């Protein structure tokens, strides 16, 4: 399958959902085209096998948008997706989420696991994840991270895997999502209110998602999933049933969706897209500001830097925690996927600047003094995404002012590492000090 064919199918799914199922306004602009962030990042999540956290007010399409993109991209009938979702609530147990002992076999003295649909299907949706108590959130940590599920010494590994989790804003029934779990999400988006006109229109189309149902396929798939054969033996049958559903989508709705082989080809095309030099240098500049601390060597959640530091004007002064290594990984995967979707040969600054706010919004903990100062500004996004967008714009301005110097410093560092006798470049930005440290120089003279 050519990249062009893959893109066409991807766009067809985006347009079909946008025109028939998930009505919302575009809220993000890339290369002159406007998209709805929840829908665009939802599809990119399916493409890169990522993890997306969708936040928003109740009833504004957080779960349904995830269901639609998953159903069409992975060719899974909607009814089965409904049956495989995990709801976050205080009484949730590992047996309901992951699997349970096969009681029949257990009576015969044999230990065997009956895996849940949630674990077996490539798409995982956790509804209202922040209603899971903090102690139970760690239950799904490993599965969420790697797609490896363990129960009773048995292990199930998902070859294809992506995850959507929804979260309401804080109310009496919600808990905070623990930082390690939050960090495992690649991106965070908001499913916004579509405005009164579209909202009223949605009222007319309550049964709009019936088109994604296929009871016959759903029954047969359910039968295979409930079958007690080992998981790898069931996979070919699951795939052929999904392909049958794909045919149904093409014939009945006119939407061409990718099969598993095509999805893998799409992914290898995405992985092969390189970053251009500016995108690379800007990402490093941004990461430097999110992890650097002149006083303590790096940002740490339990340490607060002093007022009056020379680097007060940079992001590091306004944040509490340190950027994890998962942030650049998320940024790279989604930026590459976005470049692929737009038909660009390289990841450039615009792709990175579009993805960065959504990849960092949930990961960065701003200092109270900073966020409270900015929370009353006029804005369209929830505060974390708004602050992340502002931060990216601010660092981009700094980068634009000295991009040649930063690239020079990085190029010079390459030559020094290769053994040339040169001195690292100096400059007034954390990135220069980080480069010096990489070259074995001291942070402070």
């Amino acid at each position, binding site marked *: 399958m050519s990249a062009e064919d893959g893109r066409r199918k991807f766009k067809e799914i985006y347009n079909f959902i946008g025109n028939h199922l998930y009505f919302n306004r575009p809220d993000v602009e890339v290369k002159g085209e406007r998209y709805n962030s929840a829908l665009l990042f939802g599809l990119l999540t399916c493409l890169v096998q990522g993890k997306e956290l969708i936040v928003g007010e109740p009833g504004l399409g957080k779960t349904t948008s995830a269901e639609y993109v998953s159903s069409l991209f992975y060719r899974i009938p909607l009814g089965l997706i409904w049956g495989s979702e995990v709801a976050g609530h205080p009484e949730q147990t590992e047996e309901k989420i992951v699997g349970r002992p096969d009681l029949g076999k257990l009576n015969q003295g044999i230990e065997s696991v009956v895996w849940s649909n949630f674990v077996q299907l490539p798409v995982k949706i956790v509804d209202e994840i922040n209603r899971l108590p903090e102690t139970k959130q760690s239950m799904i940590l490993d599965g969420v991270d790697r797609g490896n599920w363990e129960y009773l010494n048995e292990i199930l590994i998902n070859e294809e895997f992506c995850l959507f989790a929804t979260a309401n804003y804080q109310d009496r029934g919600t808990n905070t999502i623990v930082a390690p779990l939050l960090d495992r999400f690649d991106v965070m988006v908001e499913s916004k209110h579509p405005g009164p006109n579209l909202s009223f229109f949605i009222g007319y189309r309550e049964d709009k998602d019936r088109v994604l149902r296929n009871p016959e396929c759903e029954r047969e798939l359910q039968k295979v999933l409930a079958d007690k054969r080992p998981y790898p033996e069931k996979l070919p049958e699951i795939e052929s049933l999904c392909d049958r559903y794909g045919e149904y989508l093409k014939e009945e709705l006119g939407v061409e969706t990718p099969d598993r082989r095509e999805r893998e080809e799409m992914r290898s095309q995405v992985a092969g897209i390189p970053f251009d030099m500016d995108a690379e240098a800007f990402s490093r500049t941004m990461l430097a500001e999110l992890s650097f601390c002149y006083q303590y060597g790096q940002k740490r959640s339990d340490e607060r830097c002093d007022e009056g530091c020379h680097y007060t004007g940079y992001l590091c002064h306004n944040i509490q925690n340190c950027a994890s290594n998962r942030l650049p990984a998320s940024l790279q995967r989604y930026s590459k996927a976005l470049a692929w979707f737009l038909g660009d040969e390289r990841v450039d600054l615009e792709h990175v600047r579009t993805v960065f706010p959504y990849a960092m919004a949930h990961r960065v903990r701003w200092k109270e003094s900073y966020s409270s100062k900015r929370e009353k500004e006029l804005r369209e996004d929830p505060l974390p995404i708004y602050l992340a967008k502002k931060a990216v714009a601010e660092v981009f301005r700094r980068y634009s002012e000295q991009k040649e110097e930063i690239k020079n410093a990085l190029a010079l560092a*390459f030559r020094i590492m290769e053994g040339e006798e040169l001195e690292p470049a100096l400059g007034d930005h954390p990135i220069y000090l980080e480069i010096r440290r990489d070259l074995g120089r001291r942070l402070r003279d």
Partner: protein
Amino acid sequence: MINPFEAFKEYKYRKRALPLDDIVASKAMVVNKLMEGYQHLLDEEVKELVWLARENTIMRAYALAEEWTRGIDYDVEDIEEFCFELDRIRKAPYRIAGPGGLYLSALCNNVKDEEVVLRIGDMEGRIHLLGYRLPKGKRLIVEGDLGDFAGIGLEGGELIVRGKVGNATGAGMKAGRILVEGDAGHRTGEWMMGGEIRVEGTIASIGQVGFGRIFERGRQVYPPITRPRRI
């Protein structure tokens, strides 16, 4: 050992095209031009060291300020630098605060950037009339205190003051939003024709307001919220 800079292998090392000295010199040149423009404004407007803030004098001084700043290629940093330059000069008529505020307003309203941040907390004098006719789409953030008539005649922009303001804030404003994180003085919202003023501290008194809304510590104080009458 891994070379994490491999991606920059092909980058051709270039010497800085614009050395720091040149940047400083060009910045100083821009600030000098701004000072010259301001000098012209003072020459025409401030006779015998007296300047009265009346509707016609404000409008005339602002028009002159726009005229004298037209064609100067300045940015947000230059505006801030100009503020400090103004504060450094001790002699009259530079110390007359009204024309200075109007001149700064003209600079803010016509700069290319949508957001202007002025960190003027360390300035000795207070700037009056700042934010005059701030248009829609512009956001002026002032970190420090302002004098009288802050946001006068606001035309849809957003003025955020991270400090306190003097009297007659938002006077005659037509649209837009003023957010004051500290206290506001007397006659706040005088002759206001629309928009919104939010004061997080206390308001000494409210002026004669036409239209628009005024909030004090999150509570709407104008128009006053009336309770339904008991029958």
